[in-house]
């Protein structure tokens, strides 16, 4: 009979790689209420431990891994863990969510979070079980790709996370692999590499996680599952085609990045759409556990079983480079997976290199529309060879040295994902204000603006409010911690929205946003959460409290970024988006960021320089020491 | 790139300023002609100029102008504002209409304007200097003292130019400048 954990263990495993020792600390009950878990908790743990102003690749950086309370309870789409650290790519906080098996293994070993300090002298990997951590020499697997390394590590447990050569060579956007999922953005893998940590493996399956209020949990869970299975996005297009179902929509809405964001749509885009790929590659589901949406797919490409590249990969390594052959894109995807590199940043950086080469800033044979040399460049980047050494630092660093800052498509150093905000202004604001940089998962405004048509993509009214609202919710969802895609189901399935015609929703949303957004019913999430932790020590938050927890996590992250020197000057977009109109637009449109930003700051409680006011921090209880 | 977004620009004209400069040049031209018949110093200077000497003063590049010639009789004659068909030996042009307006509204004295490079002189320099001196004298007569002090470097004091002579000469110059000859010149130039 396995031991049981009711809800959460609240135990943190702290590891010091330099001294090769570990100790255990507790998550205070107050923090659990304020920060829920996952991202919020990770930020709070980091906030308590990290000194501002340290070198992200130095020994003082700290990597925090946290799980949500839902993990292990069997709630759908809850198999995700969060990593929080200071990013070497952006120099500010980065949070990443990943669906691989490592999270489950760590949680079922009895830990709610893991904190990694220090830097090992020699390559190591860490094995975790309920008794704590042991350190093993990783010289044998240092220099191997992610797949092989993971296989080796899995001999020690049921879930592992590893880095590839890119992380070892300190490519600033290296990622972490767990199972076939990736902790993608912001160079969290680089931080591991800088600590000489090849991987972590957790034994898992030592504890059973039980919700505190089983009955209530089951009731909510049932409703949740029903929503997911009814929703046309989660159970329809995404279940059939994965996130690539978005390609057609983006192309039609003019938000598909083409040739380093010079155009918003392309005639050949259909070739890389999810529908085409599903047909061509005979795709099957391949997902994280437990999942009810089933967006991950696997298919037969070039005669072998491969993962179907995801939307961002297809756009950034495909259309944005002028390449519309899914097989070639898949090749790049496999390479990036093997080396452990973020496909978005890789694609964004290569697109920059292509344009720079075209304009004579660097000497290179890379050209838009040609796949020649890209695979070699990806390999060069991973090993920091030749020109790859310069690209390995990301487009911001490269453009600071070689010029071309006007077409380096990044925000705060992080390359933009596959949505062009000139077709969706709200998304532009969201890119500019996202805490970790150019990130679409801070507030998925394109969904509202371009996909479901629930707001006018080029209107400015209420957009800042929508962005703030969505940021709070996403932040809270990432703190639960559950898949963000469930948001489609939770928001769109309640009867009020489901049975109201879209044009009315659109009208309400665009003109009475405050009312419309707050009428939306998201009570499922807090319900699930509270059913797991139980009312024995934490009161029910309700929707309002749930949103506020999200806001708290968001502002805390902002506050930590402020300590690293972030201010209004950094809340901006690449000059191309602000200055250059696209030919595909009827009138050349650019993102009118300034006016939106001002309102956004006011709504957020920041001062005009983008710094959270004392009052805001006090209201949210940030900075107070909790017991 | 859509080059139509950056259209070619054909700059317009400053009609009022040109008209003003035209009037001033007309008056000064007639004034110089008259001063040559009245003031001794001007007569001296004109005597030093070669016969048939023609000079023009105006605003580059498109006018207005004033053209003056030393006639066979040894006197200066104002020929009007057209330059066509005249051999101009000394061409003094103010470089642009804005500078001309400043000079003609006496915000910048002639000497200062010359020092500021507002004039481009094409021709024999000593003659140009002579003409400038004549213009200074003409201005002293034509303009009231308060304005003339702005236009010339040194306004002569009582010893240099006794008031009686000044006012008498001034009257004669005005009478001559606005005599029927003015209408003849205007008529001939039309």
């Amino acid at each position, binding site marked *: 009979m396995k031991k049981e954990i009711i809800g959460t263990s609240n135990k943190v495993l702290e590891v010091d790689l330099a001294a090769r020792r570990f100790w255990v600390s507790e998550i205070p009950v107050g923090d659990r209420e304020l920060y829920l878990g996952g991202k919020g908790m990770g930020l709070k743990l980091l906030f308590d431990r990290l000194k501002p102003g340290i070198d992200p690749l130095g020994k003082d950086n700290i990597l925090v891994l946290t799980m949500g309370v839902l993990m292990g309870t069997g709630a759908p789409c809850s198999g995700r863990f969060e990593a929080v650290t200071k990013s070497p790519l952006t120099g500010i906080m980065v949070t990443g969510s990943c669906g691989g098996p490592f999270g489950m293994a760590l949680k079922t070993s009895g830990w709610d979070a893991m904190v990694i300090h220090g830097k090992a002298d020699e390559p190591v990997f860490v094995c975790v079980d309920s008794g704590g951590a042991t350190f093993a020499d990783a010289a044998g697997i240092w220099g191997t790709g992610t797949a092989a390394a993971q296989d080796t590590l899995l001999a020690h447990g049921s879930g592992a996370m590893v880095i590839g050569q890119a992380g070892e060579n300190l490519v600033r956007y290296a990622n972490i692999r767990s199972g076939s999922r990736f902790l993608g953005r912001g160079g969290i893998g680089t931080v591991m590499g800088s600590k000489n940590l090849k991987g972590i493996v957790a034994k898992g399956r030592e504890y059973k996680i039980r919700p505190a209020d089983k009955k209530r949990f089951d009731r909510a869970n049932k409703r949740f599952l029903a929503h997911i299975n009814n929703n046309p996005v989660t159970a329809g297009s995404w279940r059939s085609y994965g996130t690539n179902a978005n390609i057609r929509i983006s192309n039609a809405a003019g938000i598909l990045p083409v040739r380093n964001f010079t155009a918003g749509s392309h005639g050949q885009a259909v070739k890389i759409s999810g529908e085409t790929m599903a047909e061509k590659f005979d795709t099957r589901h391949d997902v994280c556990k437990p999942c009810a949406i089933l967006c991950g797919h696997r298919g037969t490409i070039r005669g072998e079983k491969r993962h179907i590249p995801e939307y961002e990969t297809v756009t950034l390594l495909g259309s944005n480079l002028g390449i519309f052959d899914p097989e070639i894109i898949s090749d790049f995807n496999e390479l990036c997976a093997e080396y452990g590199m973020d496909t978005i940043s890789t694609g964004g950086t290569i697109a920059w290199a292509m344009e720079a080469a075209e304009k004579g800033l660097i000497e290179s044979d890379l050209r838009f529309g040609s796949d020649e040399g890209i695979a070699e460049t990806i390999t060069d980047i991973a090993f920091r060879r030749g020109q790859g050494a310069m690209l390995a630092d990301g487009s911001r660093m490269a453009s600071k040295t070689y010029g071309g800052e006007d077409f380096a498509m990044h925000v705060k150093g992080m390359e933009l994902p596959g949505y062009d905000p000139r077709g969706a202004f709200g998304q532009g604001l969201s890119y500019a204000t996202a805490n970790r940089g150019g990130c679409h998962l801070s507030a998925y405004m394109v969904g509202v603006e371009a996909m479901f048509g629930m707001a006018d993509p080029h209107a400015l009214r209420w957009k800042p409010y929508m962005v703030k609202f969505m940021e709070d919710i996403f932040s809270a969802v990432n703190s639960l911690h559950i898949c963000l895609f469930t948001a489609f189901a939770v928001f769109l399935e309640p009867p009020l929205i489901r049975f109201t015609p879209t044009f009315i929703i659109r009208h309400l949303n665009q003109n009475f946003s405050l009312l419309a957004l707050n009428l939306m019913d998201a009570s499922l999430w807090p319900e699930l959460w509270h059913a797991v932790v139980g009312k024995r020590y934490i009161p029910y938050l309700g929707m309002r409290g749930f949103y506020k927890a999200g806001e708290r996590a968001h502002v805390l992250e902002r506050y930590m970024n402020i300590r690293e020197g972030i201010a209004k000057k950094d809340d901006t977009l690449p000059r191309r988006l602000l200055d250059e109109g696209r030919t595909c637009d009827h009138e050349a449109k650019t993102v009118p960021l300034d006016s939106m930003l001002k309102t956004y700051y006011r709504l957020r409680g920041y001062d005009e320089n983008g710094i959270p006011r004392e009052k805001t921090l006090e209201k949210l209880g940030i900075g107070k020491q909790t017991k | 790139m859509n080059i139509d977004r950056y259209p070619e620009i054909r700059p317009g004209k400053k009609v009022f300023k040109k008209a003003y400069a035209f009037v001033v040049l007309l008056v000064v031209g007639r004034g110089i002609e008259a001063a040559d018949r009245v003031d001794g110093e001007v007569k001296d200077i004109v005597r030093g100029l070669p016969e048939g000497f023609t000079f023009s003063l105006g605003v580059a590049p498109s006018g207005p102008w004033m053209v003056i010639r030393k006639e066979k009789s040894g006197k200066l004659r104002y020929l009007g504002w057209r330059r066509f068909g005249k051999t101009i030996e000394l061409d003094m042009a103010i470089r642009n209409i804005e500078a001309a307006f400043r000079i003609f509204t006496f915000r*910048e004295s002639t000497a200062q304007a010359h020092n500021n490079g507002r004039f481009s002189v094409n021709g024999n320099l000593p003659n140009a200097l002579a003409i400038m001196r004549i213009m200074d004298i003409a201005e002293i007569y034509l303009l009231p003292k308060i304005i003339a002090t702005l236009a010339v470097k040194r306004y002569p004091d009582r010893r240099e130019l006794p008031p009686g002579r000044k006012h008498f000469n001034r009257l004669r110059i005005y009478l001559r400048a606005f005599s029927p000859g003015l209408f003849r010149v205007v008529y001939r130039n039309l």
Partner: protein
Amino acid sequence: MTMPAYYDFCSRVKTISGENAMEKIPGLLKGLGVRRPMIVTDRGVEAAGLIDTVTEAIDGGLDIGAIYADIPVDSDYRVVDDGAAVYQNNRCDAIIAVGGGSVIDTAKGINILASLGGKSLLGCQGAGTIRRKLNPLAVLPTTSGTGSEMTLVAVIADTERQEKMLFVSHFLLPDLAVLDPRLTRTLPDFLTSQTAMDALAHACESYYCMEKNPVSDALALRAISLISEHLLPAVRNPAETSARLALANASAMAGAAFSNSMVGLVHNLGHVVGAVCHVPHGTCMSILLPYGLEYNTHRREKAIGEILFSLAGPEIYAKTPEKARPDKAVEQIRMLNEDLHNITGGKHPRFLGEIRNKDGTPAVPRSALPEIARKTMADGARLPNPEEILPEDALMVLEHAWAGIHLDRSRIRKGA
């Protein structure tokens, strides 16, 4: 400093200074795309052995196309035409001018003709002929005074028409001015003193004339202090390279200053005295300079007072009350003239009446003064002078300068 309401300044000459400045010429000329320069100079310079020094210094770096040394003292347009023919026949692509003001002017003329093409300089007259960059021109001045290396004017005589052709264009500014003490090595002491006083006159005049501006002011003040500091040592001891280099620098800076803010009374009278009585230009300058300051004091009291700072140093400046500073400055210049007179054994004259021709007769007879005064009206330097100069004024000043007495302030006409 009162800021003028308008000014323009242009001095786009690359200046190289130093005891080994000539060695830098090949590199810099190559940077201008030069392969075969022609050296332009006169016989005197050649005889002094300076050309050997120059060719030695630039040897190896460049292929010297020709050496044209046939420039007479009174150069005219035919010399220019000849020079340009030599230039074209030897397929040269730049000019290195070594010499004084006359050589430099001729070289500028040759450059016009050689760059624009054509047979004779007569065809290049008229406004707006020179509207593009000419071929590279490097200037190596062998006297420290005229400042021609920094001016945009070339005056070429037309002996047949008894006229001077004046070419003015920013493209006439040389590309390179080389200030090397080896170039002024052979200059005799009285010439050093005269040319340096010429430079001092440039600097002082540019500081009070109507076109004065912040840049020319700063250059002028620096030139004045360099001259006042180094003139006497250079005259006393011609071997002192640093003093000669300082004078060459001062001359160049004074040249840059005056070519932008122009010169006034001193040059106005000086030019005419020189032309009528054939007196060396520097001599006229050194004699007339105090009068220029005195004549204009009532218009430019502060500026002329400030000249004292550079001329005599901060201690004397601080000791002198503000009202007395212009007079003190004038006195300093008179003292300087006196000193030079003594050092050169009387070859540096103090007043016009003292100037002697080679045969010992007075060069400027008193009877010539009225004619000189009348002719000042035809000299361009009368325009930038702050106070009007009419023939009567000029005569008054000349009479004082002839006798070597202080200017009688009450006789300056100040207008109403």
